[in-house]
């Protein structure tokens, strides 16, 4: 009897797995860490989902599960999506990495795409955006637009992704004004808008007249608007929170990638790849340049174009670390490995990196 049950359930699983491919349309599943209404990270992923529906119409059917905590629940949710017939699943947070790999092993016929991770398998691809490219551009704008020569940075957690952004911003600013100052305040949270607001107030109180952030809310922009400072948006266009305040915003645009990968699954050309897309792939976009003179906007546009064409890289040498040692010699470019594990500040950042 026991054997029979095992056999039957194995058979059932195979049926489910195969039906995911035999059936038309292709079911595409999404696992989100936040609510789709967060107007930041998850919102942008959901825009990608909607783009798939729009581009491929009746050939696909999409489903999503939002607010999935990173932990034991993840595996359960992904497994459920596969059992419900999803043939392609996007798992969109770093902490989903191990659960995605685990489920992928159990369901070799389903295809998985994991955002911001580094573990791949035959049926698991990874992808992420080079958002630091946008930060170089906003750093240049900040140096041009700041009167006090000091910018304030509301930072979440001292992980390489955030540190890379701070460094890139600083390098951009220094390319315009070598004496530019950057103050960093860590709030140790992604999700506490009140803390973000406090940090922005403190930074402005200390002389910063430009505020930028690496947390998920528009509150720093609102505070900047209230106090007469300028600011940049994060993850999505936040112009409505500061029509006279937002200079531009770095936009995570997953739409082209999501549509391309889904098409690849449909026509059978999908392969496990590792994509770290920048401005060249459209994954990193900039919101319209506003509240600045035309020459500053033109400069920003020119830098954007140079980065897009590969003529320029945010981490082109020479780059010095905070302690004065040479990190990248002139004529060299920092490689992706060093970028992904970045745990040091460039010279000029007015902060000690928390370890």
């Amino acid at each position, binding site marked *: 009897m026991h054997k029979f049950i095992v056999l039957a359930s194995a058979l059932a699983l195979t049926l489910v797995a195969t039906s995911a491919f035999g059936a038309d349309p292709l079911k595409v599943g999404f696992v989100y860490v936040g609510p789709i*209404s967060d107007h930041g990270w998850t919102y942008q992923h959901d825009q990608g989902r909607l783009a798939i529906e729009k581009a491929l119409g009746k050939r696909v059917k999409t489903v999503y599960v939002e607010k999935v905590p990173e932990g034991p629940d993840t595996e359960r949710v992904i497994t459920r999506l596969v059992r419900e017939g999803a043939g392609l699943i996007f798992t969109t947070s770093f902490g989903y990495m191990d659960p995605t790999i685990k489920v992928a092993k159990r369901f070799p016929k389903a295809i998985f795409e994991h955002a911001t991770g580094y573990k791949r398998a035959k049926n698991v691809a990874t992808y992420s955006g080079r958002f630091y490219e946008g930060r170089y551009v906003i750093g240049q704008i900040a140096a041009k637009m700041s009167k006090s020569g000091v910018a304030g940075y509301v930072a979440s957690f001292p992980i390489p992704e955030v540190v890379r952004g701070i460094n890139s911003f600083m390098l951009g600013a220094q390319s315009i004004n070598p004496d530019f100052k950057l103050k960093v305040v*860590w709030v*140790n949270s992604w999700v506490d808008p009140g803390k973000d607001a*406090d940090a922005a107030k403190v930074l402005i109180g200390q002389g910063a007249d430009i505020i930028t952030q690496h947390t998920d*809310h528009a509150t720093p922009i609102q505070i900047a608007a209230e106090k007469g400072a300028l600011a940049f948006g994060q993850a999505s266009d936040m112009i*409505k929170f500061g029509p006279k305040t937002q200079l531009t915003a770095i936009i995570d645009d997953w739409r082209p990638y999501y549509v391309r990968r889904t098409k690849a699954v449909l026509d059978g050309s999908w392969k496990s790849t590792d994509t770290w897309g920048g401005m060249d792939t459209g994954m990193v976009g900039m919101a319209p340049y506003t509240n600045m003179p035309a020459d500053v906007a033109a400069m920003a546009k020119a830098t954007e174009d140079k980065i897009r064409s590969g003529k320029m890289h945010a981490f082109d040498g020479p780059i010095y670390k905070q302690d004065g040692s040479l990190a990248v010699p002139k004529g060299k470019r920092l490689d992706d490995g060093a970028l992904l594990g970045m745990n040091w500040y460039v010279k000029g950042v007015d902060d000690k990196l*928390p*370890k």
Partner: protein
Amino acid sequence: MNALEAVLLTIITASTPLLLAAVGELVTERSGVLNLGVEGMMIMGAVTGFAAAYTTGSAAVGVAAAVATGGAMALLFAFLTQTLAANQMATGLALTLFGIGLSGLMGQPFTGLPGVKLGAVHIPGLSDLPLIGPVLFAQDLLVYGSVALTAFVAWVFARTRLGLVIRAVGSNHHSAHALGYDVAAVRYGCIAFGGACAGLAGGYLSLVYTPQWIENMSAGRGWIALALVVFATWTPSRVAVGAYLFGAVWIMGLYAQGVGVAIPSQFLASLPYLVTIAALLAISGNRIFTKVNTPACIGQTFVPDR
């Protein structure tokens, strides 16, 4: 505006929601009821406050809606724990979870919209004084309100018959019942008051602190308020000290980071909790005082004999 002014102003805005919620919970607990639903009532106050203000364009309507919602949530809690005699801990926790979930659902259409901010009120003459003017006399009404509320609650407990009755109900509900006081009615009132304050604290978040609706925006402030009440040994003035101390240490931590002081930010982030607990433990070191002020019946279900 100089740096000191900026810091003091920031401290006041960061502390006010904690003070509002804690004073309300203090009244609830003094009547012998432990309502762990502060976080849930607060977040519901935040969402309805934002929604009402956004829809009508009036921050005052938003404040009223926040207060009403907090009160309504609390009455639900009161019905379950006082009328149906449900377990207070479990009901309170459920209220928090319910509030967080429901607020997320209700807030869906309001996310990503710029809100209506409750403006500051300048007191003519006084608000022009150097330093103390902008800090003390150019705040929004809720800041003044929170201080007045704390003073009022302190007065009620120290000087009025109502205060005595609430304390009697919280200290020994059997005796209070035997004396002819309606324990359930007193508790209903205190729970509703606590809920209204928590709702107001939520409204402060979405109308003044960060005029937006963001899911989960209370981010644990309800729990901090709950802890403040206990560490302040159920004394209004100490709740105020605790709330402002917490806000001050938190903002000073951010300030130190901005100046570039080499202290790990994770430590600075935990400092408000440590300092507040240490300070409140130090000032409530008198064990007799603590014993006198602790509501003996807290958390116990009371069902009168028929």
